[in-house]
């Protein structure tokens, strides 16, 4: 008997991401499949925002109408709950006397940026000055967040080589906070200055701050191409696209972006961001910025390889080998080879 096809339709999702107008031509069944793929890729908020723009047909069947109502309620609840956690965090940090800055998903929600719409945020990432890390940790402990149990290896992995403390989980609400003192690992070859990030951060309300636009985009790029796994990274590319479209209208932004990429040693991720946002989602980038950043790319063979790997992986067509190559690459960038070998061995022993 042939096996049932139960896979998500990621191709369909990429198709509508590239061309949101296509949403209105989808059959009810396809639209439903798009909801499934968007939800699993954490892009439900994106899909609903574009469907809200009048792109769901009025003769939609009752079951699909119910699904969309449910999806809207879910997206609203994601956002509401993250806003509440930011409020609790603000309370925990009241009067601590140092600057703290929200990063990534929580920042997009707090600053009401496009990638924050209906966003499901798993971990709240917060950047604090390294010299105040202990103080920040104490404040969180006093307000109910505690470290999950770690074995000695994991504890050492975090403390010695990483740019963040192990995740802290709230004892009642189960919300997770990652305290960072840098945006890339200590063991990485790149060391963007946290002082500069904190210094130029902008206030949203009370003591809640987010990175300035140029830094926010550079961090998203560094995260996508240097830090995490590229596999399943459609959402991260959509984030970059959303941020660039939102900030890109301001002429100041692009000059800032180029200057700060140099200042933070993030020219390579800046190059990749410009290259792949344009290639994958046709994000508009100013032509002088494209030519200026093109000098920051790798040598051609590496570039060809990256092009092929990224497009395959982001489109969900990635072979396990492509995903593995990118996983090793992202680790290569954040650890010296000897450490990397040890880490990968350790992980492979544990997975089996």
């Amino acid at each position, binding site marked *: *008997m*042939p*096996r*049932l096809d*139960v*896979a*998500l*339709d990621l191709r369909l999702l990429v198709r509508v991401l590239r061309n949101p107008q296509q949403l209105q031509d989808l059959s*009810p*069944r396809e639209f*439903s499949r798009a*909801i*499934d*793929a968007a*939800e*699993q890729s954490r892009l439900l908020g994106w899909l609903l925002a574009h469907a809200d723009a009048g792109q769901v047909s009025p003769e939609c069947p009752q*079951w*699909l109408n*119910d*699904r969309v*109502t*449910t999806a809207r*309620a*879910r997206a*609203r*609840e994601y956002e*509401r709950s993250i806003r509440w956690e930011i409020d609790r965090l603000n309370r925990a940090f009241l009067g601590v006397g140092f600057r703290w800055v929200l990063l990534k998903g929580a920042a997009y929600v707090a600053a009401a940026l496009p990638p924050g719409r209906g966003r499901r945020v798993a971990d709240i990432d917060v950047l604090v000055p390294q010299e105040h890390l202990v103080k920040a940790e104490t404040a969180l402990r006093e307000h109910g967040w505690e470290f999950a149990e770690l074995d000695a290896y994991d504890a050492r992995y975090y403390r010695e080589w990483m740019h963040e403390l192990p995740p802290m989980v709230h004892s009642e609400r189960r919300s997770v906070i990652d305290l960072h003192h840098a945006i890339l690992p200590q063991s990485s070859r790149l060391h963007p200055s946290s002082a500069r990030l904190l210094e130029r951060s902008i206030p949203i309300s009370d003591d809640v701050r987010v990175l300035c636009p140029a830094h926010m985009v550079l961090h998203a790029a560094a995260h996508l191409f240097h830090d995490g796994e590229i596999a399943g990274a459609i959402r991260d590319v959509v984030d970059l696209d959303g941020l660039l479209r939102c900030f890109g209208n301001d002429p100041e932004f692009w000059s800032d972006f180029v200057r700060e990429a140099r200042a933070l040693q993030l020219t390579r991720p800046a190059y990749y961001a410009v290259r792949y946002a344009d290639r994958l989602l046709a994000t508009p980038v100013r032509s002088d910025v494209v030519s200026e950043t093109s000098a920051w790319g790798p040598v051609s063979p590496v570039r060809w390889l990256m092009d092929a790997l990224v497009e395959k992986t982001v489109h969900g067509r990635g072979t396990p080998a492509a995903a593995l190559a990118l996983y090793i690459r992202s680790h290569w960038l954040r650890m010296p080879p000897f450490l990397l070998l040890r880490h990968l061995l350790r992980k492979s022993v544990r997975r089996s």
Partner: protein
Amino acid sequence: MSPATRSILSLLGTRGVQVAIGPFLVHVRSELTGVRDYLERFYDDFPMAEGGEGHFDLAVVAGRGMRRWVRPQASIVINGARPFLPLPALLAGASMEWGMNWCVGRSAHHWVAVHAAVVERGGRVLILPAPPGSGKSTLCAALVCAGWRLFSDEFALIDPDSGRVLPIPRPISLKEASIEVIRRRDPQVVFGPEAHDTEGSRFVHMRPPSDSVRRADESARPGWVIVPRFMAGKPTTLERLPKAQALMQVTDQSFNYNYLGPKGYTCLAELVRETDCYRLEYSDLDEVLALLARVTAS
């Protein structure tokens, strides 16, 4: 079972079957015989059609590779996600039921859903909200055997716009000693195969009454909210529950009122305002049935 249903069910392992369960259309697919057995045994009164869409897309698939033959497994895939670890293939049919519970509890935010046993008589709905282990399903099965119409042993679904309760009659899940208790009360009741669930409890599913299934589109107004608690060896007691406490109980047992925002909260506040609310402790089913008949008659 009609030949038409039989021919629709033959598509289960390919295009799938669309089953109308209360206010939901569920697209079910499975290559495992356990799922087909469940549908044949419990669902032949339900409207069924060929085809591939609905509120929920639920597939129960066989394990891969060795797992097809050696200690075979069943995995539930719901709208492309796998929220559970694979189960032994013997539990394939039951896992479809658990998968549907997961769907209704988690993905029906157009209604307010409360964890409760729900039955109806004379146009008024009796809602029994309680956490697992309170004897909710047993009481529900006993009430159904005594002639109440089954809405659900798991969910009170409330339309936030009208305040009406929607039936979602499905097989009732009974555990351990309750299985024999209900079997003794009504020898006509049809049960599925007995098995052990992932927590090691002996369980069985009970076929919902045909009349309840045929009337699955008839909603009704809520009449009573009674919070039940089974206490072995204790005498039956029923006391008024202050409305504020009743509201705490139903919000506590609600899966999703927060997802509907102020509308969800208002809906539950209206529910307790409009109903008579009680707290019930019981151990003897005959006593409690007589008591509930008296209270709900007035």
